[in-house]
């Protein structure tokens, strides 16, 4: 019991949830999207600054649980400097990791969320900022409606 809890709430996750990185709006962002979980009310906005096909900066704001907030924080670290297509692939790998528990080194710090796979009801939390990021990548406009990314 406590073993699994400790795997979910690793030190890295607790730290990032208390002191999230890149937790701010990015006024000069090229892309923005809101991710909203209608079942619990958690919501994040993700901001992307692109140059050519590269994510040169990203950040997020919003509110949610330790898992979603840490996931957002770690995501910004994982994705900074990646190309758009790399980011899409990483999102797929991340999704797979949450479901299977198998880590992918490419995910860098975000690997610490692998423990979520023991807690299927929390997968949506860990996905929320990533889904918002994906919606931002896909959006031509600056904002997508919450439904589009609703879990």
């Amino acid at each position, binding site marked *: 019991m406590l073993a699994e809890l400790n795997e979910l709430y690793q030190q890295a996750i607790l730290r990032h949830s208390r002191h999230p990185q890149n937790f701010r709006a990015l006024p000069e962002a090229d892309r923005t999207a809101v991710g*909203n979980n*209608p*079942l*619990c*009310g958690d919501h994040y906005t993700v901001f992307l600054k692109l140059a050519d096909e590269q994510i040169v900066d990203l950040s997020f704001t919003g509110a949610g649980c330790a898992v979603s907030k840490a996931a957002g924080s770690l995501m910004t670290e994982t994705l900074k400097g990646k190309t758009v297509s790399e980011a899409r692939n990483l999102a797929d790998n991340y999704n797979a990791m949450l479901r299977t528990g198998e880590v992918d080194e490419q995910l860098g710090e975000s690997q610490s969320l692998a423990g979520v796979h023991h807690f*299927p*009801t929390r997968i949506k939390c860990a996905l929320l900022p990533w889904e918002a990021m994906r919606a931002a990548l896909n959006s031509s406009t600056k904002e997508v409606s*919450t*439904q589009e990314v*609703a879990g």
Partner: protein
Amino acid sequence: MSGWEKLRDDFPILAQRVHGQPLIYLDGAATTQKPRAVLEAMDRFYQEDNSNVHRGIHELSRRATLAFEAARDRTAKFINARESAEIIFTRGTTEGINLVANTWGVKNLKPGDVILLTEMEHHSNIVPWQMLAERTGAKLAYLPVTGDDGLLDLKHLDDLLGPKVKLFAFTHISNTLGTINPVAEFCARARKQGIVTLVDAAQSAGHRPLDAQEIGCDFLSFSGHKLCGPTGIGALYGRRELLEAMSPYQGGGDMISSVDFFQSSWNSVPHKFEAGTPNIAGAIGLHAALDYLAAIGLDQIAKHDAELAGYAFEKMSRLPGIRLFGPKGGRAGVISFMLGNIHAHDVVTVADQYGLALRGGHHCNQPLMRKLGVESTARASFYFYNNMEEADRLVEVLKEIQRFFGE
């Protein structure tokens, strides 16, 4: 048919006497009996996993949500939907049709538009459209039934599918006539004109293989209780494209994305159409029923129904003065009849004393009754747990009834 005899043991209710006579249940078209496996699945859920769905994190809630969504997946597979999101859980066929009328219908119909139905529709596939017509100014039109043989007049179909028609809604199998309609053909012809189609599958679901993609319909509605499942659960299939564009049905928990004091936004499909706590145990019972039927084989069930009904129909046709409704061949397991001048209520009352459960009345087909020039009919409907001996007994009892009333 000995494999079929073994299945009867799955239905404890059949092993009873009624008025001192062995029960012969020939009223499956109204509601079918339930095998033990279905009751056990619901009991097990309530005794082990019961919790509310979708909003919870704790273990029971996780299990309940998984089981509920697995039931949706199973239902999608049952009718070969493209994806589970195309399945909306309802109370039954009637609610499914009302849902379409109140969402798709209200949004898409204008004064002068036409809703095409057939003359053999159940009240559940007439009244919601009358109410919608009243609300939107649309009009109803009907594809005629040819007569006692219970066929639809296909010659007129292309004429009727005119440019004003926005929706064509029809039953797959008539609950009075036993007619099996060529629904894939209906859908193909309607689609050519850009007309949306709805199939009332209340009598076909659970009686034959059902493939919504092959049929090519836009909507399809059926009830759990008519295919060995519990009461209070059914499913509406809708093509995702249409579901996405539809406004929500009822307001409440689970169907929202976000609620503010003065406005709200909607959740994704199918949740947008499922406000409030759903019939969770009902969905789980439906899942068990679909598994049970699949293990027997829906094509086998269709064959068995047809054989039994064909046998009974032929024997009944030899009774003096009987009037039989519906096609002579290629029919489903539903037989309506008039025994001379004896009123259906009187037939059914006497049959009941012999242990036979028949139905008598208008079968929620009043307009069809008027068309056929009767007030009501008696009806025997067969399912896979019925057998030849019961069909024989039916014919014997009908003879007794004729003797009793001196006809």
